[in-house]
């Protein structure tokens, strides 16, 4: 803890102060209380691109062209100007400093999508170790796709989705992987999870989890596909025995039934074993099974995989639900289940319903581990969550105590599992132990919000009620009286006191403001 609030005193104190073990980053972060992005340049004249995100190491700003076909990458720099004379602080910035290219230099513009394909501007994943970026392009979605073998009904189809691996340093497209007549949930990068160098892509239409590895050279290599088969050689095994069982298989195909997929078989056998072991008395076991397992058998068989994430290199957390449950907002009619699957042993380790209090207690205590931060990334380990921050935990407990029905509360919390990769900004200005801010107006989660007229205040935690800085997303003069709906989004640099606020109003040009420390 620093003894003084003064920046110079803190710098001197830092020379002799030893932080608590393992908490040196937390101590150094206190300097962000002194260095705040309090100066704003309103409505800066910038190229008309849709700015997506700063990469987590702060090296690049990723943006897409308005026609969703080009990728433009900028390098964030800092403006520099000199001022002759005394009392420079009171001088306002020179006009030529208030330009977009004082803060950003364009590195390159690369075309990713062609003809009828468009870049999904919600999708971007960054591999920090090699500075690779993963982007996705897709053709328009079609809702009445013909049912093909292996595809489940009720899920829309996209003619072609292509993932591109781009080296952000120079814009070279290193590799690409295409999925045809498939559906991957690209919104907010929800259908894909990146952990270290492993990528898992949830193909909803064919109910397959594709595991890929990103090599150092930039190749996207298939590791395994989990769905119909669990092990890599399952398909070979079945095909080699197909001739022997040909008669049987033919018969089954004509009857309209077929084997359940590998992952489904693993799931059902796990549930069976679990329920079998619940009842100690052998005579009552069958009854217990009938009630708990066979009665719901068809419901279990009809479950489909919705979302998946890595827990570590060998374990996946898979969310199962009913076919129409994925798009429904309410969690009541459509129960969801979570399964932990070990890719190496192909066994299901755990299975919970979304109302499980046991799963909720793990969620409350170990939320940081659900985020599966790799050891390589430094700043992502310090994103405030209710598992590492007392204030966030307080907020969670407040909501829990106010909830009428604990089961509803648990289900609501479980909608955030499996976690979406790289969905939160690592900026220290969102650190809840440093600042207090209105989470409805701004938060670490990168998403669009309704804009408010009033500036968003960041108030210091440790000196209560002391306003540190404000972010006013609107134009300088205030909004017009017509009050059209405005959407704001905020892009914070991961470690510099620097942020962009982007305001989009229907039928009006986008306004971009820059907030920085002078």
């Amino acid at each position, binding site marked *: 803890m620093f003894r003084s609030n003064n920046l110079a005193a803190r710098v001197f104190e830092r020379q002799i102060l030893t932080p608590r073990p393992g908490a040196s980053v937390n101590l150094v972060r206190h300097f962000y209380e002194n260095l705040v992005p309090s100066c704003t340049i309103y409505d800066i004249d910038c190229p008309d691109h849709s700015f997506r995100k700063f990469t987590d190491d702060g090296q690049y700003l990723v943006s897409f062209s308005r026609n969703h076909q080009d990728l433009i990458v900028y390098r964030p720099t800092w403006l520099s100007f000199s001022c002759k004379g005394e009392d420079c602080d009171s001088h306002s910035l020179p006009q030529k400093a208030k330009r977009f290219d004082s803060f950003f230099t364009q590195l390159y513009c690369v075309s990713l999508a062609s003809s009828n394909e468009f870049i999904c501007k919600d999708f971007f994943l960054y591999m920090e170790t090699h500075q690779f970026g993963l982007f996705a392009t897709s053709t328009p979605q079609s809702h009445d796709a013909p049912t093909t073998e292996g595809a489940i009904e009720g899920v829309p189809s996209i003619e072609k989705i292509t993932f591109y691996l781009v080296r952000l340093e120079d814009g070279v497209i290193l590799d690409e992987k295409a999925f045809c007549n498939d559906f991957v949930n690209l919104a907010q990068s929800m259908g894909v999870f990146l952990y270290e160098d492993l990528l898992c892509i949830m193909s909803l239409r064919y109910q397959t989890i594709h595991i890929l590895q990103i090599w150092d050279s930039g190749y996207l290599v298939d590791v395994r596909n989990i769905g119909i088969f669990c092990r890599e050689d399952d398909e070979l095994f079945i095909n080699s025995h197909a001739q022997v069982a040909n008669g049987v298989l033919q018969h089954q195909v004509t009857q309209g039934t077929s084997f359940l997929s590998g992952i489904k078989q693993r799931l059902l056998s796990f549930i069976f074993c*679990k329920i079998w072991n619940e009842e100690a008395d052998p005579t009552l076991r069958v009854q217990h099974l009938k009630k708990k397992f066979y009665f719901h058998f068809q419901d279990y068989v009809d479950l489909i995989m919705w979302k998946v994430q890595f*827990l570590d290199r060998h*374990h996946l957390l898979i969310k199962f639900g009913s076919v129409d449950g994925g798009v429904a907002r309410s969690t009541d009619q459509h129960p969801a289940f979570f399964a932990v699957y070990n890719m190496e042993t192909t066994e299901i*380790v*755990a299975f919970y319903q979304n109302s499980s209090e046991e799963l909720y207690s793990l969620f409350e205590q*170990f939320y940081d*581990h659900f985020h599966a931060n790799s050891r390589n990334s430094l700043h992502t380990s310090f994103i405030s969550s209710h598992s590492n921050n007392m204030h966030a935990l307080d907020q969670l407990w407040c909501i829990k105590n106010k909830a009428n029905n604990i089961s509803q509360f648990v289900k609501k919390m479980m909608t955030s599992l499996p976690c979406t990769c790289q969905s939160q900004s690592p900026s220290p200005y969102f650190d809840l132990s440093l600042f207090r801010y209105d989470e409805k107006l701004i938060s670490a989660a990168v998403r669009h919000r309704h804009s408010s007229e009033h500036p968003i205040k960041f108030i210091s935690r440790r000196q209560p009620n002391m306003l540190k800085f404000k972010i006013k997303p609107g134009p300088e003069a205030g909004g017009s009286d017509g009050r059209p709906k405005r959407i704001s989004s905020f892009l914070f640099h991961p470690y510099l006191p620097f942020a962009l606020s982007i305001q989009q109003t229907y039928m009006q040009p986008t306004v971009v403001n820059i907030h920085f420390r002078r």
Partner: protein
Amino acid sequence: MGSLLGDWPSYDPHNFSQLRPADPSAQPSKLTPVTYHPTHNRTLPPPDQVISTEARNILVRQFYQKSEEKLRPKRAASDHLTPDHGYKQPKGAFGDGSSSN
């Protein structure tokens, strides 16, 4: 007395100034605090012990632990009748019935 480390800068020069040798005739410069030597070997590690980091993170370990508890078949009802804790003495009148290891 002077600092043990000579004249190096220290946070508080009076630290370690209370250290007095048990034997008054001992040289002050050879002053060292008494170190502990164990008199038994009960706490020695086994000779083939290797300490390494647990490969699984705590969350995955919790999942395995909880599912192992559930999958371990429970004892059949007849087993509960045999006194498992026969070596324990029943508590007095004011004790409650809970038994724990």
